[in-house]
């Protein structure tokens, strides 16, 4: 597959940026964007579920290893990986889905569709992450605030990364 190399590069770049920049960004406990989830958002639309699942597993394990997460990143990323395909189908026509390619606004029939799709994948993963991290209902308002702020930033990152990535791929 001609895009494999691009995807491997994307995988490595996202993890490096996550580990060496965002995990070191000591700004605030409310700001912890998990930008590596961009990988799941941008996996080809025709990807098989099992490939997505293993991609999510690899992302989670790598992030856990590098940040001492002890399973937290993995446990939070797997649900997003598993739900990626159903979510994509929810926000996109059956025909578009069959055509495949990198998920993007033109391919999904509009900016709004792509935005809702990306936001849901990011939200699933971030919500799982911060809920598991706090493991307490008392702190729910804080957990929500944390999820919303971090997910909002990740979403911004996804949009920029999606533009760059589809631009690079379309030149091949």
């Amino acid at each position, binding site marked *: 597959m001609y895009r494999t190399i691009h995807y491997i590069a994307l995988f490595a770049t996202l993890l490096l940026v996550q580990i*060496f920049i965002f995990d070191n960004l*000591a700004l605030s406990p409310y700001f912890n964007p998990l930008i590596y989830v961009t990988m799941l958002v941008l996996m080809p639309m025709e990807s098989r579920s*099992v490939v997505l699942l293993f991609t999510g597993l690899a992302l989670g394990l790598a992030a*856990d*290893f590098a940040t001492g997460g002890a*399973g937290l990143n993995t446990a939070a990323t797997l649900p997003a990986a598993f739900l990626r395909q159903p979510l994509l189908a929810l926000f996109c026509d059956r025909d578009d889905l069959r055509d495949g390619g990198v998920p993007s606004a033109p391919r999904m029939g509009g900016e709004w569709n792509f935005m809702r799709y990306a936001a849901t994948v990011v939200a699933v993963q971030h919500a799982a992450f911060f809920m598991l*991290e706090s493991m307490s209902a008392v702190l729910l308002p*804080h957990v929500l605030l944390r999820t919303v702020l971090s997910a909002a930033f990740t979403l911004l990152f996804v949009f920029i990364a999606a533009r760059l990535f589809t631009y690079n791929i379309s030149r091949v």
Partner: protein
Amino acid sequence: MHKLFEFIRSIYVFLLFIIFEAVALNYYAHSSSYAQAKLLTRSNRVVGGVHGALFEVRHYFSLRRENEALLARLAETENRLAALAESGQAAESATAQIDSAFADAAWTKYVYMTARVVSSSVNKSRNFMVLDRGMADGVKTDMAVVSPRGAMVGYVVGCSDRYSVVLPVLNTSFRASGKLQRGQHFGSIVWDGFDKHAVRLTELSKYAEPQIGDTVVSTGFSHYFPEGVMIGRVTDCRMNGTRTAYDLDLDLAADLSALHRVILIDNRDQDEIRELVSSAAEQYN
């Protein structure tokens, strides 16, 4: 049988998902901060070098501020030495006193060394900090870590040859005891995971009469910290739910998000104390 295989094939991704998720959750639920620190120690053999290189870049921009802090600290020490020299009857005898004090330094209870912060976070509930010194430099687990200005930062929980991992105050598993600088009442220091500048001093005796602005320092009870290490200042006091003790909000003295260098403190009596305690425990159990 054939139908069973067909069925499994149709849902195998779901089964895989359930299995992976269960393993990950189980691992996470049973992992302590210490297990995480151990994992981090291992991964730093791989990523420590890159963290170190990035640190150099970030560090470059804070050199000026760090220099000023060092100079201030130096001036303060000079002042103290001068005061000490003046307070002695003759300058010579005072110098001799100071020299002899330093000659005995080899037998002090606490030994200090410096380290650079290679990576750290404040945005999780279990934050860790990685330092660029490890067992090869004489770092051991349980050494205390304080900021260059002497404020409490954390303690070492894992070491590899060249790196060590610190459990900082900003980790919900962090435990230390603290007391009001004036008076002997003490309580426990805890962080609830949300404000990188605020920790709490809980279970402080109701007779302590804390006031806003009071300084809270470490007690000598802990295995890690010497007595009197600055922790923070009281910003709010209230009685706990059962009205048996005070809960204080503290403004943390060390800014962990802007820390580039730290001081490690080794309590050399610690091993001896620990042996004594464990042998006593064996005897009376």
